[in-house]
């Protein structure tokens, strides 16, 4: 028995060691963002001094603030539109039987499997010929593809789990099907709705390739592009670049851990076999 305890403790210790090693590059970004540049140059692992000057620095740059606003705008719109489009679609796929339903479900899921690189060229050409290059509209619409399919499939799973009888009881009392959905089903799946909206926001917030391909002018750049401009080869500070990285990475981390259970459940339910 004592032997088993000892093995458990040893395995826990090994787990902690491996996780710290694997997460070291991420921890390093966060730590570097609060160290003065002179301290970074020493390459020591332990910070000798803590400072928030890098954050003050990036938050005083107008191009970074513009990018912050643009990212919030695009991310917020993407989250809202994803929910507004995914919710009715999920409800339709879950509650109705009609010709072509399975094909439609498959079409939506298949777009999730399509990598951005695969449609980059036509999207760039189409966006340019529509005169939408360098607009946040183009970025918002293309970012819908990032989270919409998984949102539809996750919400469908949650709606499937709400018993129909609840809606039918409400319809007996005279409400329409849509009325029953809004009054009965919607409140029950609210946590899932918040989770998919958040997920869509986070995916848009960190997206790089489409932004790089569609945006060139400073006033419509998003944060990942602004981070690149912080990286000025002639005069830049690693501390400032890392602080910019924290601004981009922190919301993703925070929101992910708030909704971890819904998202992990959704990923496994979304057709990827565990």
């Amino acid at each position, binding site marked *: 028995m004592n032997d088993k305890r000892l093995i458990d403790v040893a395995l826990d210790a090994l787990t902690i060691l491996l996780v710290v090693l694997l997460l070291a590059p991420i921890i390093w970004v966060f730590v570097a963002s609060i160290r003065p540049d002179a301290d970074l140059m020493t390459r020591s692992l332990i910070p000798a001094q803590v400072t928030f000057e890098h954050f003050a620095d990036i938050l005083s740059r107008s191009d970074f603030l513009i990018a912050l606003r643009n990212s919030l705008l695009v991310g917020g719109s993407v989250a809202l539109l994803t929910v507004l489009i995914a919710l009715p679609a999920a409800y339709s796929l879950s509650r*109705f039987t009609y010709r072509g*339903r399975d094909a439609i479900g498959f079409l939506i899921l298949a777009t999730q499997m399509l990598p951005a*690189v695969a*449609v980059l060229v036509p999207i760039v050409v189409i966006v340019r010929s529509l005169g939408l290059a360098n607009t946040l509209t183009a970025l918002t619409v293309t970012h819908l593809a990032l989270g919409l399919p998984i949102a539809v499939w996750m919400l469908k799973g949650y709606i499937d789990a709400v018993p129909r009888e609840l809606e039918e009881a409400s319809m007996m009392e005279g409400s329409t099907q849509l009325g029953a959905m809004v009054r009965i089903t919607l409140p029950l799946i609210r946590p899932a709705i918040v989770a998919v909206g958040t997920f869509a926001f986070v995916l848009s917030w960190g997206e790089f390739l489409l932004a790089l391909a569609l945006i060139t002018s400073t006033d419509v750049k998003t944060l990942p592009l602004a981070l690149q401009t912080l990286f000025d080869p002639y005069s830049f500070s690693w501390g400032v670049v890392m602080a910019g990285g924290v601004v981009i990475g922190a919301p993703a981390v925070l929101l992910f*851990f708030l909704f971890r259970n819904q998202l992990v459940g959704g990923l496994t339910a979304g057709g990827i076999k565990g």
Partner: protein
Amino acid sequence: MSLSSAERAPRSPGDQALAYALVSPAVAVALAIAVLPLLYALWLSFQDWYLLRNPQPIWGGFKNFSALLADSALWSAFWRTCVWTLGTVAVEIALALPLALLLNRDSAIARAASALILLPWVMPFIVLGYGWRFLLDSEVGALHAVLQALGVADTSSVLNDPNLALGVIIFISGWKGMPFMVLALLAALKSIPDELYEAAAIDGAGHWQRFVTITVPLIQNTVVIIGLVLGILAFYSFDLPWIMTRGGPQDATTILGITMFKAVFTDLRPAYAAAISVVMLLILAGAALTLLQLRRRD
């Protein structure tokens, strides 16, 4: 007529119309962002369109495809992408398998660790790319100092070394994708009943024997299927090698995604880039068919 809660016939034509109306915005987005661009890319790949010569595309037949076959830089990018894809998946499996075995225990630390380990997967590429560049920087990089002490790197960063850059970025790519494999393997491991191990232990099988005869066959499918999914993602990579080295030094990290991007934005040949993406898609379709075949077999 009783109404079962799983499947039932539509009650009225009005219901049918409502069902289509509710799903149509999502279908419109899928058509606009996936189907239409794919068809347009196919059409574009048969055009002759070099922006410096003709501002509008003209019909070029198989011109792009024959140019593509003769493009030696593209061929080396293709082989590099194969190495990149297989390497990324190999790193993912090599990191994820021991980790999943270690995390498949019922302790508070194992549970916390299996949540934390997802961080590389959720962090945006741009943050991780610059984080690793910082670690490997020849002047301030902590990891560079270690590599230098080990004799792997000399005074300049490994990212500037044409022989090492690809391998280093493949490792980072695998590290980023590893959490997804851990998640899948943990689910597979947890579904193996303890009785199997107990029965084998009674029969006198040792740890290694139990791993080889019970664990390996039961997680094999997960490794293959998730490996294929991650392989497709790796095949279509762009962000990491672009952020870290822009495809350099000397094309050492130029994979197909980067070749395609440069064909549009540097060489101004969108139709040629479209042809590359059509060929990549054919390869993806081949991989996806293999995946479906394998899924059907279990």
